[in-house]
């Protein structure tokens, strides 16, 4: 049953990533597409613009949330692939724990960056 919930979370995070990254792709490509038609727009991904968007807490929180769900989706997918290749319960446990620990370390690193940005 636990595996079913983990897989359900994999599907839900997948759809969330598709929606959120889709929005991000559209936003960052609007200047490109409009530029193609001769419309000049402000640069959305300049360092100042990105930092300004990262400054309000809600945007930093959203960025961390997005990265966290991408991390879950990616590492869970990697675990599913590895577990399929190594059909042994003991090895599966080792793989799962290695992935959980690396995920926690990466998430801590990711959260640290917006904290640095917010405090600067």
């Amino acid at each position, binding site marked *: 049953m636990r595996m079913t919930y983990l897989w359900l979370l994999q*599907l839900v995070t*997948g*759809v969330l*990533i*598709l929606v959120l*990254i*889709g929005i991000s*792709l559209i936003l960052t*490509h609007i200047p*490109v*597409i409009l*530029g*193609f038609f001769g419309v000049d727009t402000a640069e959305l*991904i300049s*360092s*100042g613009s*990105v*930092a300004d968007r990262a400054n309000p807490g809600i945007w930093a929180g959203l960025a961390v949330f997005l*990265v966290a769900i*991408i*991390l879950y989706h*990616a*590492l869970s*997918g*990697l675990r599913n*692939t590895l577990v399929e*290749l190594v*059909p042994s319960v003991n090895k599966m446990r080792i793989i799962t724990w290695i992935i959980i620990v690396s995920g926690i370390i*990466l998430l801590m*690193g*990711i959260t*640290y*960056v917006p904290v*640095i*940005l917010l405090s600067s």
Partner: protein
Amino acid sequence: MKQIRPRQNLLGPGGWIWAGKYRLERYLYFIHRITGLGLLLLFLIYLVTMAIFQIQGRDAWGATLALVHNQWFGIVVVVFIYHGLNGLRLTLQETGFTLGRPTPPIYPYQDSLRKKRLLTIVMTAMIVLLALFFLFIYFVVGVW
């Protein structure tokens, strides 16, 4: 008591490509898995570079962007589009929303996926159209 050991039927990654008569959906899933592993690798590289450069300061931001601000990033966009839309199809089919009604197993048999193959075709067409659009933007227009 004699312990019965299950027959080992592990083909490894080779089995992803060929283990009998695979259909279109199986190969779409194989590409889905490969693109997923590629995106994971890219995501880890992205996280590390972003973390290093953001901590170093805003002046170093341009150097980070130079890594992704070239026409080859179009390939990453196409890979993401494939993985995202094919993943959406897999989700819809796995949760049962787009599978056909159960039917009696009467010859010629038809599996549940191929009852709704239109969804696969439509989703693949959308992927191809979006991929062509972004490849055009990146490689032909060359706006980056």
